[in-house]
């Protein structure tokens, strides 16, 4: 309460002393830069640097300062600690980051108390945005980007499928979403495996899937080493030669495609960002990224979320000026429609969750390089979990 008073008093003073006075707006980002999830932090940071290179580091003369904190190996208590530090000591105007769901949930009380607008850059469990009225999600939910896949598969001649997911909450969400939609559309699930997260050799699971003789194999694993190992085993064990179609989501992101051989050709994935799309926003984004992070830098879901979060912060400062309180910022941000490199996105004003297109893509070879090519687009997909559970907290 006191903070708000001081903030609004300061804002009033600022208005008096004219806008010509330059201010610093601080955006604190908590993400893993070390440990097994370090790739998220790197992608966020590359993307933010590319954004500032393209759009400058100031808005109307006010400097936008991004402050990074490394939460390490997915440590939720550290995430909360950094949130407190960033809010109390650094006095950040906007908070953001969070690769994993527990990291985001851990800060919900802190940001509610401090009324700090907080942009979720990855954490994909549906319920998170209901944990605080100051959360806004620019990334996705698992149920959201998988929702079209089951129906699409049945419509495209896949009658039976085998489901193989990692045994953790997003894996269960993914299994539920795919299996539910696939069966509703008339498909038949012939087997379901949940694989413990510590498993490294997927040979026995792929052997089971192979023996099931299903038309398709649906997979879901944490993007990174586990998902790469899973797809490699699919290739090596000859499931494709046996006529099975591979269905997935983040496993087939462009950033991982060089890890696979040509047997990945034809793999289908369902996500909210096709890296090779030719929208002018995406072309500009990739160009800026290649200029700052090197010519081999490839964007992924994490990059796109950080990019759009920066866009939101810049737009907020442009409209509200450098001094704003949490309610003003959240209300402003959730009303935005962005022409993102992934396509148009907007927000559900009640849930503060992203609404975006979901693309069904196929891995193809273009100019000798493996890329994802859109073969179907589903417009303005909401998070189906929220609609199915209107009262869950």
């Amino acid at each position: 309460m006191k903070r708000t008073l001081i903030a609004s008093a300061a804002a009033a003073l600022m208005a008096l002393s004219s806008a010509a006075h330059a201010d610093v707006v601080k955006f604190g980002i908590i993400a893993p830069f070390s440990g097994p999830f370090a790739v998220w932090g790197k992608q966020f940071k590359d993307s933010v640097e590319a954004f500032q290179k393209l759009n400058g580091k100031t808005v109307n003369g006010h400097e936008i300062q991004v402050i990074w904190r490394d939460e390490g190996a997915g440590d939720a208590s550290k995430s909360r600690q950094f949130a407190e530090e960033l809010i109390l000591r650094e006095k950040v105007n906007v908070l953001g980051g969070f690769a994993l769901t527990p990291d985001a949930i851990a800060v919900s009380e802190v940001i509610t108390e401090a009324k700090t607008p907080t942009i979720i850059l990855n954490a994909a469990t549906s319920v998170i945005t209901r944990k605080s009225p100051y959360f806004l999600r620019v990334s996705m939910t698992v149920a959201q980007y998988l929702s079209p896949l089951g129906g699409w598969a049945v419509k495209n001649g896949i009658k039976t499928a085998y489901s193989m997911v990692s045994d953790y909450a997003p894996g269960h969400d993914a299994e539920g979403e795919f299996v539910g939609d696939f069966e509703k559309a008339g498909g038949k699930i012939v087997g379901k495996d949940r694989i413990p997260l510590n498993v490294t050799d997927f040979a026995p699971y792929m052997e089971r899937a192979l023996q099931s003789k299903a038309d398709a194999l649906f997979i879901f694993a944490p993007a990174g080493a586990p998902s790469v190992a899973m797809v490699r085993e699919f290739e090596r064990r000859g499931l494709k030669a046996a006529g099975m179609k591979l269905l997935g989501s983040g496993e087939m992101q462009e950033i991982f495609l060089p890890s696979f051989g040509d047997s990945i050709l034809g793999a289908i994935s369902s996500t909210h960002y096709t890296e090779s799309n030719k929208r002018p926003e995406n072309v500009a984004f990739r160009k800026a990224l290649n200029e700052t992070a090197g010519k081999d830098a490839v964007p992924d879901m994490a990059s796109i979320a950080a990019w759009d979060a920066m866009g939101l912060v810049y737009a907020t400062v442009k409209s509200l000026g450098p001094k704003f309180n949490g309610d003003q910022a959240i209300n402003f941000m959730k009303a935005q429609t962005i022409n993102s490199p992934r396509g148009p996105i907007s927000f559900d004003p009640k849930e503060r969750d992203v609404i975006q297109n979901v693309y069904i893509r196929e891995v193809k070879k273009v100019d000798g390089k493996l890329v994802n090519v859109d073969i179907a687009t589903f417009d303005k997909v909401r998070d189906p979990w929220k609609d199915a559970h209107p009262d869950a907290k």
Partner: protein
Amino acid sequence: MEVLTILLDGISYGMVLFIISVGLTVTMGLMRVVNLAHGAFAMVGGYIATVLVLQAGVPFLLSALIAAVVAGALGGLAELTVYRPLYRKGELPQVLLTIGLCFVAIAGLTFFVGPTPLPAIVPSWLDRMVDIGYRSYPAYRLFLIAVGTLLAFIVWLIVERSLFGARLRAAVDDPQMARAVGMNVNRMFTVTFVGGCALAGFGGAIGAGVLPLEPFYALRYLVYFLIVVAVGGMGSFRGSLLAALAIGIVDTAGRYTVPQFGGFLLYVLVFGLLLWRPNGLLPPKSVA
């Protein structure tokens, strides 16, 4: 026939574990050093081979050999500079320092190569299916079994049939007595450490298709390497082969038949085995 498939999958997986872990069994058995950085040598070997194959176009087998040489050299350097002062220290400093080495390797590779998992460097002549009579089977896995068998045989020759091996076994069984009769145990330590690290580097390179390379490799698979040593018996070469194969087969069979328990079965096996034989399957005489 399913049984045969599980056996092949399990043995090929176990062979990779064996190649990487056999060096660790020496360090822990012979030198009594709790060497938690062993996985880092395998990881560095794997990274070197991958970079050579992808950036310089070096053939797969040659780059795996170079990886072994470099990992061995790094191991020798580490032995002389970092490990030697540790031999007389307690276990806690050893754990702290070697786990610290792990973190250095992880941070270094994240910084220089990046945090994403590396592409598989399985060459096209291995990345195919071959007909083995009753089904077609990945050639890569057969290759792992062949190489593992060959290396196991070479290690067996050195350890059981050479003068160096006889001395090594003597030093494992009773280091004090070995010193007393005039053996240069220190030099033997260095040589074995280099050999163990070279094998780990080689295993990390050729086994990348089974244990995918990423900066966290050094810690992610450490528990498997330690299980091989604990179950096999510290300092026992035959023990580590037996343990690695048993782990590979049981882990694979468990996941194939009761996937909902996943890797759980492995830990039950380890638990039971260590209850039954706390010093491992084939412990050296000094421990048993």
